[in-house]
Each structure stands twice: as structure tokens, then as C-alpha cells.
């Protein structure tokens, strides 16, 4: 086995960032596509920065919410997500109260814990990071659910008999969802002050992890009263299926995506950014906050006004697709705009394309952002510095 050699490949001046970079398909410093014949494409929409084999807009939950996972190691996660979905459908149709509550509240958050373990986003502080995000989020979610659950039930019951009033819509559809969103972010904010986690994807991951801890506890506490129904739910099979799919898939994905987006945009504020067309529109803190608040209010009002399971899954299903697309576009642009300085290092095997490439912010061969690779192994030594 050959030892990694010092970088000797010829260089070229990248027209986008005007640096001398190894002459590969991508600029290793700014990630722009340098393909022959087509000029320079700084946005490289055809190659998602966290998984260049996919387009920036591509229907993959794993490469969107689990961006550190290398393409070749996605399969177990995709299979796990598929198994979770099939089990949720089965348990929903069978109306098995206990197992479906357990699966709906815990499955996706536990999958995220496996992801954190697999790529070691927490570096060598697993207790601190998981404690501050998942565990702290779960504590907040438990307390919040005991307060907000009965309040929302009361509002719904009143709406059914007296009609939806303005004050009840403001309370249940605007205030409660926004406070819950702030609580989901709390865990990530604990870690905001630690300088070592300075990548936008760190922020995104911490935000998503905190939101999933919160969601798991909130769903569990809110669904536990249904256990008095006994082994089988008293709801119809259709209602039970729609409810469990909304609670088990849509709600965690929306909560993780939105919270991750806000945290990622916050993290992006910590260092210099590279200007890119539309980046302000896509990843600036203002845009992300406005979009998150708008979506939260829309979903909250829909939950208070359209209380039946069919409307609920329609609203949350649509929101899930919207959030996943937004998260993908935002992660792509966060990785491209985040101005990281990585001095050209010795060759190492890229975790995505497995080519021996000089260590840089982006792989010159496949274009993956080094920050979107696991923090284990060679990736640990090659983290970007601002």
C-alpha cells in the first residue's frame, strides 16, 4: 500500500474564486464546476454539494436530513426508513395502539441517533452534544406537551361547538407552534457558543437533533392518553393510519428540517461567506426565519381549524415535501457560500468518490464538500477552518 503522496498535480486558476487550485472537475476551494467546454458553474445544481451523485433537487430523505452520510453508506438508512414506513402503515391499519405510539414517537429520532453515532458529528464529545440536543430537547418536549396538549385539546373542543374564534386561532395556531419552535432550537443554542462546532452543517445537525428529541417526547406524552382505548384504537382504520403516518413521519421530518434550517442559518452568521447569486434569498437568517414562522403559523392554524386526520395529513404531507426541498437547496447553498479556508493538504481518499485527491474544502474530483463527510477517520483531520 502506498502512503499518500504530497500534492503534485498541475494547478489552474479558478475563474470563480480566482485561486490556483488542482486541475480537477471541481474547484477544491469554492466548489465551482470547472468542466471542460461548459465554462464555470459556481452553483453546480447538477451536483448536490453533500452528495454530488444527486441533483440539488432530488427526492432523497437520507441525503437531505442526514447530509454527512457518504453515498455508499446510505443503503442501511434508506432500508431502515422504508421499514419504519411499512411498519407505521401496518400498525396504523391494524389500529394497534401501544406499538404504533412507540414507533411513531421514537423511530425517526432513534434513526437520527444512529446517524450521529455513525458519522460522529459530535467529534469526541458525544455526551455533551447528544445531551444538549436530543436529551435536552426531550426534557423540554415532555414539559411542553403536559402544558400545551390539554390546552390545544380544549381549543379544538371549543372550536367544534362554538366555531373557530380569532383568539383561539391566535392562541392555538400561532402562539403555541411558535413557542414550540423556539424550544426545539434551545438545544442547538446551547452549543452555539462552542467554537469547535463552527460549520453550518454542525448547526443544522444540532438543530435537527434537538427538534427530534423534542418531537419524540411531545408525541409520546400526547399520545399516551390513547392507551386507555386498550390494545386496539377506537379510531377507524383510516383515521388511525392517517394519524400515525402524520405523527410518525411528517411531523418529525418537518420539525427536524425547519429547526435545522434555522440553526444552520444562525451558524452561517458566525464566519465570512462567499457571495453567490440568490444566496441571500435562500440561506440568509432573515429569509429562513420568515419562512419558518410563516410555515409554522400556516400549519398551526390548519391544525386548529381543520382538525380531522385527512386535512391534517394533507397539510403536513405538503409541508414535508416543501421543507425537504427547501432544506436540500439551503444545505447546497450553505456549503457553497460558507467561506472556509483549507490549505491544500496531502492526498487522501475522498469518502465519496474514493479517488486519491489533495485535501481541500471540496473534492477536486467529485465536488463533494469535505464538511459533508463523516467526522470519523480521515475526515476528522481534514475539517475546514474558517
Amino acid at each position, binding site marked *: 500500500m502506498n502512503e499518500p503522496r504530497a500534492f503534485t*498535480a498541475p494547478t489552474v486558476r479558478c*475563474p470563480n474564486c480566482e485561486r490556483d487550485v488542482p486541475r480537477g472537475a471541481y474547484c477544491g476551494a469554492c466548489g465551482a464546476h*470547472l468542466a471542460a467546454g461548459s465554462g464555470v458553474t459556481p452553483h453546480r445544481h447538477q451536483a448536490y454539494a453533500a452528495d454530488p451523485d444527486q441533483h440539488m433537487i432530488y427526492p432523497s430523505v437520507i441525503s437531505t436530513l442526514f447530509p454527512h452520510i457518504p453515498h455508499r453508506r446510505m443503503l442501511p438508512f434508506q432500508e431502515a426508513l422504508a421499514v419504519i414506513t411499512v411498519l407505521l402503515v401496518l400498525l396504523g391499519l391494524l389500529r*394497534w395502539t401501544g406499538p404504533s405510539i412507540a414507533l411513531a414517537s421514537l423511530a425517526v429520532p432513534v434513526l437520527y441517533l444512529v446517524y450521529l453515532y455513525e458519522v460522529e458529528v459530535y467529534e469526541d464529545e458525544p455526551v455533551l452534544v447528544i445531551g444538549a440536543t436530543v436529551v435536552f430537547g426531550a426534557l423540554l418536549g415532555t414539559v411542553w406537551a403536559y402544558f400545551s396538549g390539554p390546552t390545544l385539546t380544549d381549543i379544538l373542543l371549543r372550536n367544534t*361547538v362554538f366555531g373557530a374564534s380569532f383568539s383561539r386561532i391566535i392562541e392555538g395556531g400561532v402562539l403555541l407552534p411558535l413557542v414550540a419552535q423556539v424550544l426545539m432550537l434551545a438545544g442547538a443554542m446551547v452549543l452555539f457558543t462552542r467554537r469547535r462546532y463552527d460549520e453550518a452543517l454542525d448547526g443544522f445537525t444540532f438543530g435537527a437533533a434537538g427538534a427530534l428529541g423534542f418531537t419524540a417526547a411531545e408525541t409520546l406524552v400526547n399520545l399516551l392518553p390513547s*392507551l386507555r382505548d386498550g390494545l386496539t384504537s377506537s379510531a*377507524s382504520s383510516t383515521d388511525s393510519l392517517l394519524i400515525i403516518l402524520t405523527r410518525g413521519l411528517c411531523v418529525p421530518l418537518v420539525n427536524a428540517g425547519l429547526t435545522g434550517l434555522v440553526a444552520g442559518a444562525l451558524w452561517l452568521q458566525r464566519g465570512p461567506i462567499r457571495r453567490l447569486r440568490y444566496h441571500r434569498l435562500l440561506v440568509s437568517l432573515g429569509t429562513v426565519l420568515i419562512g419558518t414562522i410563516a410555515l409554522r403559523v400556516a400549519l398551526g392554524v390548519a391544525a386548529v381549524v381543520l*382538525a380531522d386526520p385527512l386535512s391534517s395529513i394533507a397539510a403536513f404531507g405538503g409541508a414535508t415535501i416543501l421543507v425537504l426541498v427547501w432544506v436540500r437547496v439551503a444545505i447546497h447553498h450553505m456549503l457553497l457560500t460558507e467561506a472556509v479556508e483549507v490549505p491544500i493538504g496531502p492526498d487522501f481518499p475522498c469518502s465519496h468518490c474514493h479517488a*486519491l485527491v489533495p485535501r481541500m474544502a471540496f473534492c477536486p474530483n467529485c465536488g463533494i464538500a469535505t464538511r459533508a463527510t463523516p467526522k470519523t477517520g480521515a475526515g476528522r483531520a481534514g475539517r475546514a477552518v474558517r
Partner: protein
Amino acid sequence: MPSIICTRCGFANEGAVRFCGHCGASLVATPSGPVAPPSAEAPRAEAGAGIACPRCGTLNQAGVRFCGRCGMGFSAASPPEPRVAPVVFSPAAPAHVLAATPRKAGRGLPWAVVAAALGITMALLAAVSQAVMSHGAATCGVSCQPPPPPRPQPPLGPSGPPLPSSHRYTSATYGYSVDYPEGFDPSGSDGQAVGWSYTLNSDSSSFEIKIQGEAANGRTPQQLVQSVQQSFMSGASPVFTITGAELGSTAGYGQVYDFTTSPQGGQQQHLRLVVEAAIRDGVAVEMIAASLFIPDQNEHPSPAQMEPRVESLADQVGNTVVWRSEPAL
């Protein structure tokens, strides 16, 4: 100096070149290693000899159209950006990849542990649900058709003397009136409607009852009931029709609905909704009552499977409805 014949155009390229000087095709059959650093084999540009590549400085034989080293075209309109075939980086040795990006599977990826933990939790909650399920009759959903409600129900609250007139609501707009028991003052009323909104202390489940008037406008009681259900709980499904439904002494129509809601951020609730309507002299009065679904329990039969006290209060209030045109009770 050896020459390399281009397999695409047949041009004889002189020297150790990587790209055909005539057509620009790559002459490297398979990528076997990283690009070699500039060496003596790639002569640097010298004045007056051949064509010097403006990008990499390699001296090319006269007359070629592409740089043999970097593949850059020599046409007049050559753009400054790198219109080059990118360097093909060599794949790393498998052992090297494994060492650099270790699979944690080798250290025991916790899939089995995770699946087992989830399975145990599911089984645990199944056991809990079995344990906390009320004894006696099995619960049933909308498929159950409960028997018609027996009337009258036992009175709610402490029994006392006949209700004094102060416990009476009279609609200013439609002229109907209802009486209500001691201790259940309406939580709100206006010219058309009166409502009770309570949280029962025992199990903190709330209930709502509302009596409202409107002009019948030629509609039947059944149409009124359906219209109320559509406007207040459009997702509810009918369970059974109340036989012999009446408000006060006026025959009307009544329906029990089933409704499950599980709003994000709120508890999952299985609700029952009762809507009754009756018409006299063109004035319609409607009673709407909602409570949590209560599974059948042997000791507390409730025909509509509502909170028994709610059903009782709804019955009691509904029985006292008096239209303006009929004599007071």
C-alpha cells in the same frame, strides 16, 4: 522521440503527450495514476519553436490545434477559463479507503440493538395498553351501533326544588327559552345562542354544549343537523340517528357523530358530537354537544358513548326548550 498515433483521428503526436494535438482527444487509455509533475519530457516554452501553451507553458509541435499536455485548444477565441479535460484522479487502494473512512459496522453498528430496543418499547406499550384498558365490555369504534338512548336520564347534580326562573335563558332574537340546573351557569350567551363550556375536574376532560336559534327558511330538521355538522366538524362520521329526538316537546331530528383528531402539538382525541334540531313556527332551535368518547363501561352506560354527565346535562337542558309561541312549562 516516440510518436503516439491518435486512435480517433490518426494524427501522429510527437513526444510524451496526453492529448491529441489535432483533435484534442485524450491519449491516456485508462487512468492509471495521477498526472505526473512537469518534467524534462514536457519541454518548456522557448521563443520561436512550435506553439507555447498559454496556460501550462508546454512547448507543442508546430501546427497542432490542442496542447498535448493540458488539452487546451489553440484557436483564436480560446477563453481564459479552464476549458480543459479535468485531471482524472486515481482511485485509492481499497485498504487505504478503509483505513481512512472506517465503517463503524466493523465496531458493531447498533442496528440490532436499536431494533431490539424499539421492539421492546412497542411490546411494553402494548402491554400497558392492555393493562389500563377498562374492564368489562371491549371497546368499539364507529362500527358499533349502540342501542337507542333511553330517556329520561337521571338528573345531574344535587336534586332540589323546581328551577326558579332565574336559571333561564331567553333568546332576544328568536324568543325561545331554556332552563338549566343550579351550578351550571352559561359560559356565554348572545341574542341567538347560549353555551356551556366546562372542564370536569375529575379527569380534566372538557365538554361543550350550545343551544342556538336560527330561521328555518324551509329546511327540515335533518337538513339543519347536517348543516351544523358540516360547519362545526366537517370530518365527523355519523354513528347513529337518535330515535324520537325532540327538543322540549317538539319532535325533531338528532344524530350522533364520531370524530378523531390528532393535531400536531396536541393530544389525540376521540370525540363524540350530538346534534339535535327541531322547528316550530319557522324558528329552528339546535342543540350541539361534544365530549370525549367514553368506551362502554358496565357501570356507566351512555348510549352515545359520551361523558355520562355531559349527555345527562344535554338531555336535561334540551328537554326544557320552549318556543315563544308555546305555553311556558
